[in-house]
């Protein structure tokens, strides 16, 4: 078996694990509720619509930036409410990374603070297209 003295088990950060677990669960629940509510509304107002998703010819969804999506949701448009829920869902793992940053900083684990910042920068690049 493994020699315990050779590999001392590092302390788990159970407080951080609990925070991250709760954050992920709440984020998914909130996103699913918003998507579900928008979805029911969408089915009520557009259930009889004959959609055509066979090709990308019309350029896809117009709801492709955060300002457009939020404006639509404030105007109570069903598709924008669903898309807002999807934004909340995408934000959930991103927030998890932000909270990890605080957790590693509290442990004074600067190597992992740096690694977490790199991941946040990569995420920022991926999400930068949603600004306008």
């Amino acid at each position: 078996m493994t020699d315990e003295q050779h590999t001392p088990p590092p302390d788990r950060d159970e407080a951080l694990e609990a925070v991250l677990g709760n954050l992920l669960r709440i984020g998914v629940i909130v996103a699913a509720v918003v998507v579900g509510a928008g979805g029911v509304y969408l089915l009520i107002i557009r259930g009889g619509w004959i959609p055509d998703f066979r090709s990308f010819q019309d350029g896809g969804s117009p709801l492709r930036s955060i300002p457009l999506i939020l404006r639509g949701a404030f105007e109570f448009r069903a598709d924008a409410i669903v898309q807002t829920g999807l934004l909340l869902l995408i934000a959930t793992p991103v927030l998890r990374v932000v909270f990890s940053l605080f957790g590693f900083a509290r442990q004074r684990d600067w190597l992992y603070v740096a690694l977490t910042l790199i991941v946040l920068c990569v995420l920022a690049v991926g999400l930068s297209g949603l600004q306008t």
Partner: protein
Amino acid sequence: MSYIVLSSLLFAGSLLAGLLGALTGLGGGVVIIPLMTLAFGIDIRYAIGASLISVIATSSGAAAAYVREGYTNIRIGMFLEVATTAGALGGAALAGVLSTGVIAVVFGFVLVSSALQSLRASHDDSGALQPDGAALRLGLNGTYPLDGRRQPYNVTGVAPGFGLMIIAGGLSGLLGIGSGAVKVIAMDRIMRIPFKVSTTTSNFMIGVTAAASAGIYIARGYIVPELAMPVMLGVLAGSLFGSRLLVAARTTFLRRLFALVVFVLAVEMIFNGITGRI
């Protein structure tokens, strides 16, 4: 087909995909995309967008439970996320350039390897005897719950594991899947991380990886709320139900059956991709 019928069928199909995905460990994405493209004739880019959303939902939902149970290694996850998120940006960029036929063929080959991977039932849980230097410097070694106590484990093969994770992230960004099969090869076999730790940590990373490319997919208009809604809710409900069942069910037969289904879908995706029907 009216929207209410389409979304009901997509919801039902996604529910089943999420259920089988959770029971077999293959994830829901591997059947969602063939279902949407082959059965409903939906553009593969919309299918990938919807699948990517469902992947974030299921991985975050499951990760919430695993993190609290103490299996997930947050440091391994964070370190490898540098690789997977960078790969995901590359994959999402490629998705905008490659033709749908090429994407379908690549998807088919990834499906074949996932199906074969899921049939490999035995896992070596002995762990690495000696950690490599990088694992020590990065503090990747950890402990996990085993028989009522916490069993320590060492991690090795950090550099090749990291490299393979860039590819896993790239496939995730290109195809809208969690690419769990590639992640398990990297963590289970190369880095010698105990199976339960590698599956839960891989799952923990999938949400962040998918979020990196989801922004690009929304900005390109690939994520259509009308399609993402039934798929996300269906896969999420199915996978939550599946993970409850998983404790009781013996899944060897189911895994073989599902692998066969995935294999047939893969061949069909490749055929349709080559003949230009996707």
